[in-house]
């Protein structure tokens, strides 16, 4: 389990989506890292990739809308970081198409997905919660 309570920012809609993202990535890593026949895991890899491509759009849109709503000063910077992450996912999707869903490439993707998600939520997203608290709001 990757999710930790300290990742909460105190805004329910964002926290629930973060938890969903962490659960899906965690699930994906368990399945990729489990010993066993690689061929049987490819369906799960494809499912996670499709989920990430769709869900990050929904989540980033919701989170960015929330930032606009509260006049979050780092909105533009945060939006750029989201865009770069979407590009990273799409670049891997292209590589999977070209190079195939090899174990090595999928594991590399898993390592990036995990570290990005943790660092982004543990650091950058915490500033949203801190800003809300500073403004005296409850989110």
């Amino acid at each position, binding site marked *: *389990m990757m999710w930790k309570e300290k990742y909460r920012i105190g805004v329910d809609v964002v926290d629930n989506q973060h938890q969903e993202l962490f659960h899906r990535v965690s699930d994906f890593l368990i399945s990729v890292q489990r010993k066993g026949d690689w061929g049987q895991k490819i369906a799960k890899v494809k499912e996670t990739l499709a989920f990430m491509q769709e869900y990050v759009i929904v989540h980033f849109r919701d989170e960015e809308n929330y930032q606009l709503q509260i006049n979050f000063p780092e909105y533009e910077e945060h939006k750029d970081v989201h865009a770069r992450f979407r590009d990273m996912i799409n670049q891997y999707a292209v590589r999977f198409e070209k190079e195939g869903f090899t174990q090595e490439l999928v594991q*590399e993707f898993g*390592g990036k997905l*995990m*570290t*990005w998600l*943790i*660092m982004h939520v*543990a650091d950058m997203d915490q500033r949203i919660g801190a800003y809300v608290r500073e403004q005296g709001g409850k989110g």
Partner: protein
Amino acid sequence: MKVAFVEPFVKAARDVFQLMMDLDAQRGDLRASEQLVPSKDASVAIGVTGDLLGSILYSFPRQMTLEMVEIMAGMPVDELDSFVISALGEVANIISGNAMAYLNSANYMCNINPPQIVLGQETALEMVTRKALIVPLRTRIGEFDIFITLKEQA
């Protein structure tokens, strides 16, 4: 090379270890080396360009690397496979990126190149300075080294 270039990397590494792994990293004594050769099993080299030129090498013991990834992934990890190596490379990448932000605010505008993984302790990397500075950082799961060789561009 200036000792002042070390601090941004120490600060960034301590922050990232705390944020990502809830690990406190204590700085050890600075030493110098005439060679840039990994001191431990799994290393990440990151090139720096811009106002400063050179490279940073993060060198981790195997067991520590596995435990770092275990903490982040929340599941057992027992080999240095592509998943572990990729996660390690990204941790070093994030530390270096944050260190660049500190250097930028000190008016050194620099960029980093993608992380290169070095396994084992055989490979010697190119140095831009006569000596590299090495700072060890101790955590409850092990000790790792950050090698820094940076020079100001003329």
